């Protein structure tokens, strides 16, 4: 069954939904969209590093995304004007990555595969890595769930309850870097944040609890992955953008639903 490229593509899309659903809820609650952009764009720099130094693509992407996410977290802790700083980092990372890739000798790098994903080319080994990464993210979030929620509601209340807000922020930072590495081949660096934000935002009107919103985001992400894949076959459109289009359609439909909570 895994010999079929379509089955592998569908399973890769589902893996992204599993990880991006609950993490996306936190991205929405904590207004981390720009943070996500900076981390995702750093992945292109990671691609250049991986190709240049002949290391694994997943490893290079993860390292670059993690470095960026930690940098941003440190800057946040110092109370810099985050909007501007993140804008500089997000676009700077993307531009540096694109320039770095152009220096790579002799390789005709298909950049669009990294910018917009190449889900139909996912092999068995890559699929295993993607699922391992997605399950790691899910495990991390489940483990820290209650603490993460408390810190998100109020860092002062969390601190009074004996939690360490810095540690929980670090957990989210690591989870974000992992999702970027996992989703790079599926939707590409430019659209990763879309898979975090759009399903979570679409799930919001249907949910009456944080848990329901996270689960809803996962379900909508899965629906978008399968629907987008189907659409890309039927209409012969690029798979990554088609998945995001499907998610956006669900989001638009969710605007028609009266809020439950």
């Amino acid at each position, binding site marked *: 069954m895994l010999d079929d490229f379509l089955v592998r593509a569908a399973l890769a899309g589902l893996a992204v939904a599993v990880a991006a659903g609950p993490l996306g809820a936190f991205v929405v609650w904590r207004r981390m969209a720009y943070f996500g952009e900076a981390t995702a764009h750093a992945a292109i720099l990671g691609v250049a590093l991986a190709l240049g130094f002949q290391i694994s693509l997943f490893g290079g992407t993860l390292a670059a995304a993690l470095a960026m996410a930690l940098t941003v977290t440190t800057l946040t802790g110092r109370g810099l004007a985050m909007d501007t700083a993140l804008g500089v980092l997000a676009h700077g990372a993307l531009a540096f990555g694109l320039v770095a890739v152009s220096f790579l000798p002799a390789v005709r790098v298909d950049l669009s595969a990294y910018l917009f994903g190449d889900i139909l080319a996912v092999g068995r080994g890559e699929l295993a890595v993607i699922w391992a990464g997605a399950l790691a993210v899910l495990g991390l979030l489940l483990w820290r769930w*209650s603490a993460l929620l408390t810190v*998100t*509601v109020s860092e002062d209340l969390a601190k*009074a309850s004996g939690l360490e807000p810095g540690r929980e922020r670090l957990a989210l930072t690591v989870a974000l870097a992992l999702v970027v590495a996992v989703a790079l081949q599926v939707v590409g660096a430019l659209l990763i944040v879309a898979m975090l934000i759009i399903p979570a935002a679409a799930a*919001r009107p249907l949910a009456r609890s*944080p848990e329901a919103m996270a689960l809803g985001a996962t379900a909508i992400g899965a629906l978008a992955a399968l629907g987008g894949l189907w659409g890309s076959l039927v209409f012969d459109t690029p798979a990554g953008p088609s998945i995001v289009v499907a998610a956006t359609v669900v989001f638009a439909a969710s605007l028609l639903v009266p809020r*439950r909570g």
Partner: protein
Amino acid sequence: MTLIAAQGLGVSYGAMAALRDVDLVIEPGEIVTVVGPNGSGKSTLVRALLGVVRPSAGQVTRRAGLRIGYVPQRLAVDDRMPLSVRRFLSLPDRRDRDEMRAMLDKVGVPGLEDRQMTALSGGQFQRVLLARALLADPELLILDEATQGLDQPGTAAFYQLIEDVRRETGVAILMVSHDLHVVMSASDRVICLNGHVCCQGQPHVVTAAPEYRALFGLGTHGTMALYQHKHDHAHDACDHDHDHDHTPAHGTATQKDPAHAG
């Protein structure tokens, strides 16, 4: 067995010193009230005691494993996260359903479990915050202007509730307030704060101190000082009990006092 202590505590935001040289000790079962005008560092002191802001000088010592119940002056719960009262009460530790129902009853907002936090009125919200703090079975309850946004009867009922809780559980209370009436009626000890500790001691000592008068005996607070003066006088003259019932505005009450008129 001291619960929490600050020694030579100083906190600076950039070049600006919000607090300096604050010494504070809270023992089990005490009610300590911190009063001070806006910008006097009251909330900074609370945040330093909680460990949210790092001291730039001195230190804060908490007894190991100290359970703190914290009621902030406000909490920005916005619409992006769906959050019911029941879910909020279980953050971060799971609470039993019956336990939650009983606590909401106790703080005077029964049956709100399924309500969304964003749908609560100001008074309901503060009571839910108190319920969450009490569910942790705290040894120290920290109330940072916890009655902000409540009207007069709501404030009175809220403080009555706090006194009931303290009587039942013996919890120590650190109350931050600019409500001087509360200072007089409920506290074992008052700390008058204005960047540093101006004066501290038992309520009647502090309210007679010139530093306190300098901070509060001006402007609209003058009526309060007048009332306080009368209270101290009566207290010194005859050893009557503390069962005052001055609910109307104290300034006018004093002026109409037959003792003064005659």
